[in-house]
């Protein structure tokens, strides 16, 4: 057992805490931290969850390791079932999925996320990868856990998304109720600086990492979020950190973080 752990390990552990036991949970592709978080939850406080891998749709697998691509046999190992594409999206549409993980190059205070483009449709500044199934699933899944590892950039948590790919609590076209969407929308937002909870449809800061000053969070956030003087993220148990390392020996999770964040180390107590 090492005496130190890193921010990327802690981040996965904190993301896992947003999952409740017995939920049916799905992560999209391009989401190694969420993938690891789901396997941590399944192996610790949420043994009864139904874990569905993004891109393979394998149910409750025991991956050999987390691979750098998410449509891969490594994520299907020892699965109890492999859903079809149709089964997964039908489950989402009828409201059987309790939770999904979503991220974005931009995330606003209402929980809308942008993974499509920076700029406007007629003047595209930067093309982003794209939303996968998010603009369908974000409407119908019971609760959304949002995450970003790029909060500090000050370009990610914005007042208003240039383009709304996935649906938060309210878009320029209306509230979820007005738009006819049945899902509960964003519930939590975990960043490399702290943790937000959505209260009455807006993001409110509830925790910060101990090496982050309140002023840093204020500088990095493009919207008002209540006070930055919030409790610290509770430290993770040693066994959870060990699990992160065992699940992800290639360190695929680290591809989500800037080098500066990977250098953040914490003493295990």
């Amino acid at each position, binding site marked *: 057992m090492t005496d130190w752990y890193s921010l990327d390990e802690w981040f996965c552990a904190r993301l896992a805490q947003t999952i409740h036991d017995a939920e049916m949970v799905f992560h999209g592709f391009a989401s190694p931290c969420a993938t690891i978080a789901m396997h941590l939850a399944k192996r610790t406080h949420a043994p009864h969850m139904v874990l569905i891998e993004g891109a393979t749709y394998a149910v409750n697998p025991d991956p050999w390791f987390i691979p750098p*691509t998410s449509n891969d046999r490594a994520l299907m190992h020892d699965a109890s079932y492999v859903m079809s*594409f149709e089964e997964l999206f039908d489950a989402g549409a009828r409201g059987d999925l309790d939770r999904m993980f979503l991220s974005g190059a931009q995330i606003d205070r209402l929980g809308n996320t942008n993974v*499509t483009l920076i700029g406007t*449709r007629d003047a595209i500044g930067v093309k982003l990868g794209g939303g996968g199934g998010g603009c369908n699933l974000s409407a119908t899944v019971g609760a959304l856990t949002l995450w970003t590892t790029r909060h500090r950039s000050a370009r990610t948590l914005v007042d208003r998304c240039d383009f709304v*790919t996935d649906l938060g609590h309210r878009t320029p076209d209306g509230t979820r109720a007005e738009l006819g969407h049945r899902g509960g929308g964003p519930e939590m937002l975990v960043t490399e600086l702290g943790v937000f909870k959505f209260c009455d449809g807006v993001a409110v800061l509830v925790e910060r990492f101990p090496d982050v000053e309140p002023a840093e969070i204020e500088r990095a956030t493009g919207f008002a979020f209540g006070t930055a003087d919030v409790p610290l993220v509770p430290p993770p148990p040693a066994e959870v950190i060990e699990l992160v390392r065992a699940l992800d020996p290639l360190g695929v999770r680290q591809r989500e973080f800037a080098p500066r964040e990977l250098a953040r180390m914490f003493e295990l107590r």
Partner: protein
Amino acid sequence: MCSRGANALGHATRESSTVPVDTSPDKVVSLSEAVAGVADGAVVALGGGLSSRLPMALVRELCRQQRRDLHLVGSAHGIDVDLLIAAGAVGVVEESYVGFEQDLGVAPAYRSAIETGAVELRETCCATLLAQLRAAEYGIPFMPVRGVLGSTILQLHPEYRELECPFTGERLLLAPALSPDVALLHAVAADAAGNVVLPKPYVLDVRFAYASRRVIVSTERILEPGQLKLDEVTIPHFVVGAVVEAPYGAHPASCYPDYSYDRRALQDWVKVASSNGRLRNVIEALVAEDESAYRAALGSARLEELRAWDARDRLLDLMQ
């Protein structure tokens, strides 16, 4: 519109809005023959997803034959779309994602072509696309879809409509039926008649097979009649129009259980496609003269490495 008949050999044929029934016992053709039927401007559905079971041999042949203005349709894809864009073969991209995830990022040729306006962006969502294919399969003009309302994705799709449900009063998005002109799929095995074996996940391959007007299947191997067990068939012969033998036909994507994906090849692609250099020459070299030249350029040692994909070997390979 539906006419029934028989072809010159007496096998059943039918021309309908989606799948023409074809019961010929031998649909095996060469790669170049199969792709010759894909017209410039065609709506092309790409099977597989991300870096798995992409129809790369067929994609490379589209590059060799210098196809233009293709309208690509699919869920989340990668080097298939990117290579076609870099080769100048694409006019419209209607995919839900194009890239290499957190590992290698957004597909570089896609990003650049969308940013410059060289290719039209019609980004779609997985469940919307599924509903559109199902409408084609069901023989109905549209399907209601949950979600999307409120998303800016709507702006990219003037063909979508909105409806108040006559039964429940709910607001629903309607998406029109989608019948791609051709589906390009890569299989682990098929017989000459076109019975196809796919490994899971099938992604949208089976839906594409039923919704498209023509289905071209490349396969790692062609099995003798009778070798295929009934339970193994994922797509039945009568919806398949052509079968092409293409070993390593998904490379650099994976085709399990035969071989894993080739991350080093994707890294090389991302590097070269990001450089904005003379991509045409690079692509000519990359797709090679034909598939046997392509495999020869990779070398048998590398191909054997990719076949050894048990847990330990995979881990070591990816760590290099």
